[in-house]
């Protein structure tokens, strides 16, 4: 097992290197660079651009050097914890991302908890009462949740909140707390604003989770060991919790790897509609303006989280499922 762990960690290194190269190439693929974008913008506004100044800037940022040199510059920087410099914000990338990452974490962890808390009881109910009125009703609601576009739901909720509560619930907090240091009131304001994006982003996830949990659990409920547990005289509910539910958790644990990057990138579209100060809209902006170090470091961060997430979920699976931990075993 230790050798397995070591092997898994070692294999992460070439994976990340490969991802960094691909990320860098893709960011560089569109013609031009950040400066061309800037020049175009300035020219369209009728400003004169001095060629010598541009060349100076290009040399300063290292944009005139060949691509692989730029890559090595960036990659070695990453290793030393230097994420590069954002052209657009004129700030180091770390400073630009800073606060947004924290708020994104808060928002998306709240969303995940919302999904699990809502989806689990409903999924279990749906599976244990298959084809009942309640199952059909919840299934119908679930499909509506899956089919509704997030941004539409966001707009509707914005409108309704404005009519019913008379407040603007866009953003993550009341505008007066922006750029204020953290205080108890600011936290309360964040909590007050949090529920709308959580519900909006969480709806489709909840619906999908209900469907999957129901299907997994239905498979497991057919299994013989459930009858064994009941034949012992175990209460049906306790039997359900201990045996089939535990068995049907595996796919969800395997999903953690996908969840972590989602937590960071967030739902960009919803965040734009609700004007949330999360990282999603910023990533889109950076990609549009070819702010290459911001976008590149960002994507690398996502890749790192995916790889680590996969590693964590593999570990958790091994801890929770002895069949994986003791692998092979008596298989013939």
């Amino acid at each position, binding site marked *: *097992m*230790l*050798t*397995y762990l070591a092997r898994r960690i070692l294999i992460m290194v070439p994976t990340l290197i490969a991802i960094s190269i691909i990320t860098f190439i893709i960011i560089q693929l569109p013609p031009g660079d950040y400066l061309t974008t800037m020049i175009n913008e300035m020219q369209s506004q009728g400003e004169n651009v001095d060629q010598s100044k541009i060349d100076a800037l290009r040399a300063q940022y290292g944009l005139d050097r060949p691509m692989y040199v730029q890559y090595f510059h960036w990659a070695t920087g990453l290793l030393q914890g230097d994420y590069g410099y954002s052209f657009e914000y004129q700030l180091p990338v770390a400073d630009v991302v800073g606060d947004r990452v924290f708020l994104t974490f808060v928002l998306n962890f709240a969303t995940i908890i919302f999904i699990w808390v809502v989806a689990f009881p409903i999924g279990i109910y749906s599976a244990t009462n298959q084809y009942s009125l309640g199952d059909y009703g919840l299934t119908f609601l679930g499909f509506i949740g899956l089919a509704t576009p997030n941004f539409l739901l966001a707009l509707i909720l914005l409108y309704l909140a404005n009519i019913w509560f008379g407040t603007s619930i866009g953003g993550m907090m009341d505008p007066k707390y922006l750029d204020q240091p953290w205080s108890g009131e600011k936290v309360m304001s964040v909590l007050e604003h949090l529920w709308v994006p959580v519900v909006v982003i969480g709806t489709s996830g909840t619906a999908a989770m209900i469907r999957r949990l129901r299907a997994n659990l239905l498979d497991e409920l057919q*299994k*013989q*060991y459930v*009858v*064994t*547990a*009941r*034949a*012992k*005289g*175990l*209460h*049906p509910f306790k039997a359900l919790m*201990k*045996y089939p539910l*535990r*068995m049907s958790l595996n796919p969800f644990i395997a999903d953690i790897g996908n969840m972590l990057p989602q937590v960071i990138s967030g739902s960009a579209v919803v965040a734009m509609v609700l004007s949330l100060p999360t990282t999603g809209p910023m990533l889109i902006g950076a990609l549009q303006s070819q702010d290459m170090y911001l976008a590149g470091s960002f994507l690398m961060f996502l890749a790192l989280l995916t790889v680590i997430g996969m590693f964590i979920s593999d570990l958790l699976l091994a801890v*929770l*499922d*002895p*069949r994986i*931990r*003791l*692998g*092979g*075993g*008596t*298989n*013939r």
Partner: protein
Amino acid sequence: MNDQLTPLLRVRDLQVAFDLPGGELLAVNKVSFQVRAGTTVALVGESGSGKSVVSQAIMGLLPPVAEIRSGSILFADDRKKGTITDIARLHRDGKAMRQIRGGQISLIFQEPMTSLSPLHTVGNQIREALELHRNVSGREAQELTEDMLRMVGFPDPARALRTYPFELSGGLRQRAMISMALICRPSLLIADEPTTALDVTIQAQILKLMKDLQAELGMAVLMITHDLGVVANMADDVVVMYRGRVMESGTREQLFRDPQHPYLKALMAAVPRFNMEPGERLVPIRDIKSETGHLLAPTESAKAPVDSKKPILKVDSLSKCFTIRQGSWLSSEESKVYALDDVSFEVLPGECLGLVGESGCGKTTLSKTIMRALTPDQGAVTYADQDGEIDVLGLDGSRLTDFRQKLQFVFQDPFSSLNPRMTVFDIVSEPLVIHGIGDDAYRREMVSELMKLVGLDARHLNRYPHSFSGGQRQRIGIARALALKPRMLICDEPVSALDVSIQAQVLNLLKDLQEQLNLTYLFISHNLAVVDYIADRIAVMCAGRLVELAPREELFRNPVHPYTKALLRAVPDPSLDNPLDFESIMDSRCSIPSEWPAPFTVSEETHPRLIDLGDGHFVRADESALTLRLAS
């Protein structure tokens, strides 16, 4: 000890109905029987006879769509003297029912593979049953569980507590299941086909264990089974069910010596027995007619006298080794397992060679190797017919495809071996399509002839497999194997998934086909009685090695190898005259080559080879065995 007048369990006029979309189905209809304390009652019937539904009704474990319509299940608990509970009236998941379940009546199932949760240790699952019904401290529970595991024959109970079910063999799993059922010392144990999924040697051990435990704990056993051999050896009373009704019931002596009901008589006639007359046929309950048409009639070249001494298939010192990686958190070790170790034999044209062995002995690996689904580490397979010799392992590309027309395969599981999304016509004609044989008209005619050949109605060609029963599906599988007019068939446990009466039907069909089409069989089975019925010569395999090979009568009359002897002793005969000798049943050591007595021992130092004893009788032993045999 017990009140002999009130039976422990009395089932009276029980009716169970299933509310299905297609209408109501009366699965159990006016069933009455009783179980006296401390005795064994066998509930016998084919699949679909409603015998399992009766057990579910007694346990309160009926599926939600099923409902007890009328009748009563009176349970007289001997711990609470004088109280009689009617289980039929109790709420299925109510407190009273849950106390009976697992506490006073326990259940063990057929499938030891799936009836334990793979995520919890054996100890955890057994303790759970104890803690539900007895007020014990953690340490006491631990000790009682360990005692129970020792009682059912776990070699190292303390370790067994911490193992997971998938780390155990099938036999040990069933033992764990039994200890879970018995840990609360129930007064009634319901055993639903407890040994059907196990090998004969393991089956004999488990039956012995159940008998011993029954004597020790004084419990009654309701044994649900389709195996008349098990019934003859275990039961005091027998209840025969068919389509939800009791056909006949009485003591074991009455039923075996003098069966009254035609169904029971038919059932008895359908079971292969060891003492059958030469040429005697099994009598299936529903016989099938097999017809050959002009397309399937043996061609002239096939009819031409072949040199019957020249083997059609020759397997020469085949070896295959699997590497198993077994690991824990801190270490992982690789161990090599020989699935095949120096296996050599010959199959003569027109004969049926039976291959017997328990699960895991390598018989399926062998068949897959011959079919080129696996590549052996060393050895050779040669196929020879009038077209010349073929080195099977050296074939590739189109020559391999051509070879497939000569050798075909019949699978064990008639359910998973047919694609549920293909019609029967597509299934049976697929080999013809793959090999590009004939045009549409030819294929249509061939398929309908094949259907007639296996006794199925050619009008059902457009149906899907799910509308056929297990036996019919197996016949579809046989038809598909015959579509290419092969010279030889490998049948891998073709009847082990079928009911006794259906088994007789398929066995007779295979026998008839062999004669009509001049086929050669390699017939793989774990059931000695079945092999005895169909095979001319029998090869016995154990732990990847061929240990004995002899003509059928010779093997049964004069087995030489200790494993063969153990195997023969372990088969329960469906008659009262030949009971299992439980005392002489060896523990599981009989299948460990290094534990065999000299000169049969196989270990690091000794590698005995097959020795010719004359008359086509071979045994794997050291040379000294020859003198041993001559002396006796």
